[in-house]
């Protein structure tokens, strides 16, 4: 082992962390790692050590919004000839809605509709929910208390993003003021009234996390 470990104890904890992350086929939350290693373990430092060690290897240690996992290095993709799933191609409306939720979250359905200028069919959100890329967030404190939508850690994991700040072009869009969800102008044709959308949202009420 190349990393200089001063004490035998630290060594075992680090090996244990490596083994736990290696054993899992899905990202493990930092909280669960900390629980396993004990309160006194310096998880951040340990993860940094591991991450640095694997940075140039065939597998990398990657974070997705507080979840950690080993995964093969993306740049090896062209060489990896093991069975791969076909790329998931979403319908145009669904990928647009996904992008809007990813870049504007938390965002209400009414806001999604004002950005797209068109009603969002139930099926579109259902597709994204079923894949597990979006989830309901808190209700907005505005009339009708509409539900908001956010992306999940699975979404970040699927696209190999450590955090939402790594979304392509997110900084430029923010700087250009294009991540504003406000309705454009009172006189613009409205899509649907918020009340109707809120009624629709109640179907998802069970999903709402009580934060």
């Amino acid at each position, binding site marked *: 082992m190349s990393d200089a470990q001063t004490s035998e104890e630290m060594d075992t904890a680090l090996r244990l962390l490596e083994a736990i992350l290696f*054993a899992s086929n899905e990202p493990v939350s930092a909280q669960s790692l900390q629980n396993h290693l004990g309160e006194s373990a310096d998880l951040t430092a340990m993860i940094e050590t591991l991450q640095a060690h694997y940075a140039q290897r065939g597998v990398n240690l990657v974070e997705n919004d507080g979840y950690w996992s*080993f995964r093969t290095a993306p740049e090896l993709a062209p060489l990896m000839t093991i069975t791969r799933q076909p790329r998931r191609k979403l319908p145009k409306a669904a990928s647009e809605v996904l992008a809007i939720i990813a870049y504007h979250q938390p965002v209400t359905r009414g806001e999604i509709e004002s950005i797209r200028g*068109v009603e969002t069919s139930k099926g579109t959100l259902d597709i994204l929910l079923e894949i597990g890329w979006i989830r309901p967030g808190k209700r907005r404190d505005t009339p009708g208390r509409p539900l908001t939508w956010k992306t999940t850690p699975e979404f970040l994991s699927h696209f*190999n993003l450590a955090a939402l700040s790594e979304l392509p072009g997110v900084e430029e869009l923010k700087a250009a003021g*294009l991540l504003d969800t406000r309705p454009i102008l009172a006189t613009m044709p409205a899509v649907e009234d918020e009340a109707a959308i809120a009624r629709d949202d109640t179907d998802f009420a069970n999903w709402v996390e009580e934060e």
Partner: protein
Amino acid sequence: MTETPTEMTDQAVESAVPMRPHADDLVVALEGYDGPIDLLLNLAREQKVDLATISILALAEQYLNYINNARHLRLEIAADYLVMAAWLAFLKSRLLLPEPPQDEPNAAEMAEALKFQLMRLEAMQKAAAQLYELPQLGCDFFLRGCPEKRPVEEKPVYFLPIYDLLSALGAPQRRRKPDSYDIKPTKLYSMEESLLRLRRMLGGGAEWDNLFAYLPNMKGHEGLQARSAIASTFAAMLELVKAGELEIRQSQTFSTIYLRGRTDKDEPAPRQPVEDTHNE
């Protein structure tokens, strides 16, 4: 599919007399758009200029021509496309005419708002495409192929509501004396029910009959239950006599009781009854 609107709209803008392409092409063309903003954005892209510098007036005209064309062909156009057309016509007039009174929206602001709307949607469409250029799980990178099962140990955390603690105290007693206390929940016949049964059975019939003929089926019933059937029927009978709905007759103490529905004319004496065969 997206080629069609391109040709269409170019021609519409260039010539005052619109071409008449095959009707189906236009239907397909409108179906290809996700609403009026998406259509506007596609029309704008054909101008091949930066959205920031695009002429909203020209774009509004292009859209109106497009919708006019579709109307000309008597095609069904979704309401939101028409609402947008009306709004754009309004915007167009505002852009061409002198500024209106102050309380109405300013034409330049309206145009800016529309421009922002187009830019924001375009940004999201681009973002969606860029998202899909990222490496994807299961296609470009992979998680552990054969995960290892970690041993699981269960350490239950027990709880007990105080009610359960207190009622547990009586449990041994409940269990202890099965012989003297094992009474199954008893079914008793109520008077209300007997009233209902008597009324129904009497119906219009006015023949004298033994009271016991009006008891419910007593098979398998015994003791308290059978007695409750007799008692409730007896009480119901008295109740009906009081209400004037039936007559009763008994020749002497403890002899068989006969009853019949009350009628005005007199009946002959009761037929010879079967003597108390059902009396347990």
